[in-house]
């Protein structure tokens, strides 16, 4: 099994699916001749040509909507956003059209479309380029939301997303594109809505997705030195969400920390926390804690940015709070 970068895994998923389904097209800024702003689509234009790999103008609303219309009428578009921070310009097409037209038509049509691209912060890019959007999309009925943290998951999950007949928001990260992991060449898929226990432990459950998952692993290594064994759950799908896996883990550990790169107010962590208190109240030995970015925009200055972005130490502190070690 070869080691592959996250970007290679994403590309392989798209290429393999496109080879076996003529109705799949890829649209976005710089995806074709430029070979992708982050080289995710490198070589795809050469293989599939301009009919299927389509460079768009900088018109997120326009090409998102054209994608939705094409999906209604028999194609299976993949829309790449250079980042999901730019998708905001086309949000009407995602929230009002992709998510709702099937419902409003009484099920007369389906919209098999994937909106994918990097999400959340990627260093000192300023406030408008640093937003984590998973909670916003997960809020909207009609959408499915996936957010892989590793190359292996990314490939299997993207294949599932592309084959799904509903609109899927597929979130990646600029900072994960270079990450390497063994990724099989053989066909495999990872189902929607199924999380994975990526580290077993008995003292605390850490729920962490996307880029935050890697911080959780760092924190767990440090905590082990202090004799605290963390169980790490990567939910992988944001919607539907594998609450069952989280609840079952808490029944064992009795403590939970949620790590989420969203803002704290009405973010993913809020919803996960609510479900835990409702469904696992009697199993908790401490109030659930969360680690998120603050309730404020991303700053530019390195000093402030480092303060803003969660780190492993924040997770360690939260774990020590729920284990009463502080």
């Amino acid at each position: 099994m070869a080691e592959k970068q996250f970007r290679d895994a994403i590309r392989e998923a798209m290429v393999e699916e496109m080879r076996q389904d003529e109705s799949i097209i890829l649209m976005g800024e710089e995806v074709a001749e430029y070979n992708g702003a982050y080289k995710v689509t490198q070589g795809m234009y050469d293989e599939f040509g301009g009919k299927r790999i389509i460079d768009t103008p900088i018109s997120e609303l326009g090409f998102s909507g054209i994608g939705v219309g094409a999906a209604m009428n028999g194609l299976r578009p993949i829309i790449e956003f250079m980042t999901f921070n730019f998708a905001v310009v086309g949000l009407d097409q995602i929230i009002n059209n992709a998510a709702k037209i099937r419902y409003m038509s009484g099920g007369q049509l389906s919209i098999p479309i994937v909106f994918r691209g990097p999400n959340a912060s990627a260093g000192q890019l300023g406030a408008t380029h640093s937003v984590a959007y998973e909670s916003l999309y997960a809020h909207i009925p009609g959408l499915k939301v996936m957010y892989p943290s590793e190359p292996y998951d990314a490939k299997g999950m993207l294949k599932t997303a592309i084959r799904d007949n509903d609109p899927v928001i597929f979130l990646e990260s600029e900072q994960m594109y270079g990450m390497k992991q063994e990724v099989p060449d053989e066909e495999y898929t990872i189902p929607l809505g199924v999380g994975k226990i990526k580290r077993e432990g008995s003292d605390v459950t850490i729920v962490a997705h996307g880029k935050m998952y890697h911080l959780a692993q760092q924190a767990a290594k440090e905590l082990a030195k202090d004799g605290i064994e963390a169980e790490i759950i990567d939910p992988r799908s944001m919607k539907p969400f594998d609450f069952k896996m989280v609840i079952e883990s808490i029944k064992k550990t009795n403590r939970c920390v949620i790590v989420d790169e969203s803002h704290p107010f009405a973010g993913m962590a809020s919803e996960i926390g609510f479900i835990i208190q409702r469904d696992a109240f009697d199993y908790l030995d401490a109030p659930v804690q969360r680690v998120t970015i603050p309730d404020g925009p991303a700053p530019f200055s390195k000093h402030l940015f480092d303060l803003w972005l969660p780190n492993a130490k924040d997770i360690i502190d939260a774990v020590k709070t729920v284990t009463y070690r502080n």
Partner: protein
Amino acid sequence: MAKKADEAFTPTGMVYKSTTLPKPTRKKHKTLGLKDEQLPEIFRNMYLQRRFEERAAQMYQKGKYGGFLHLYIGQEAVSAATVTVLNDDDDIISAYRVHGMALARGTSPGACMAELFGKKTGCSKGKGGSMHFFDVERHFWGGHAIVGAHIPLGAGLAMANKYQKNGRIAICFFGDGAVDQGSLNETFNMAQLWKLPVIFVVENNGYSMGTAVERHSAGQLHKRGEAYDMKNGVANGMDLFSMIDTLNDVVKEVRETNEPYFLEVKTYRYRGHSMSDPGNYRTKEELEEFRTFDPIERLKDYIVKEKVATKKQLDEIVEEVEQEVLDAIEFAENSDFPDDSELFEHVYTQEDFPFHK
């Protein structure tokens, strides 16, 4: 302090004559490729749209259903010409003033009325309502109520047609208010750049809700096409034959060249924007003037004058349509509301989606 009109940003302080119609064509129906027997049927089509909406308004006022109700009355020549000229499998998508277009395409009056009533037998199973009629089997793709948001969808339908080389073209209708949206400009750019076989039609009825077109759009609407090198033109939407004449050319052009076209149709709605519209943004004289060339009366006069059918034959059609609409109301009233389980049906294609609670 007096409000000075010359200091206002939006042109204000006067009532504009909202629309100036191009001269109607003088061509006879045979010149336009229409057979004698088609004319009474087109009359039936247009009158069905008219009578359906008059009755729908009555039912609304009686409190039979809620929501919004935007009537198309006055604009029926546009929809009738469209379904006459286009092939049945060409793709139509429209905005929220949509009853006429669905009925013209052949969606049954019963299914349309039931949709207004929110019944399970409605053309969108009671999930869409007045603004969201769908009949995908008839290549009628809705009913869209975020102004301008369906313009890219129209281009997307065309893109899929071109990709699949199926020979179909798409036609996308919107009101004059939608011309001001960014979605139109982004879509026009891509549709021209990508050479998509789609006809964009602005049904310029003179008013974006209560704002006269001169007050919301700079310049002539059809000329927006020129910024993108898109072919464009103007048609008289109050005259069936003029509409057919123009669409004959436009459809041929789009089908042959596989390139988009932007058509500005000058038309007029006799009723308010919605049911709660006092209409004080326009004059009674203007409304009366446009009533003098009611597209349905005009067609009726032509048919009788040219002896294509007798007045008696047309009166029979009127009677039949009247009954058809009454039957539609009865059908809607007697239909059931959607089952409780329908709340979560058709959100996803996935049947076992675990909805969050």
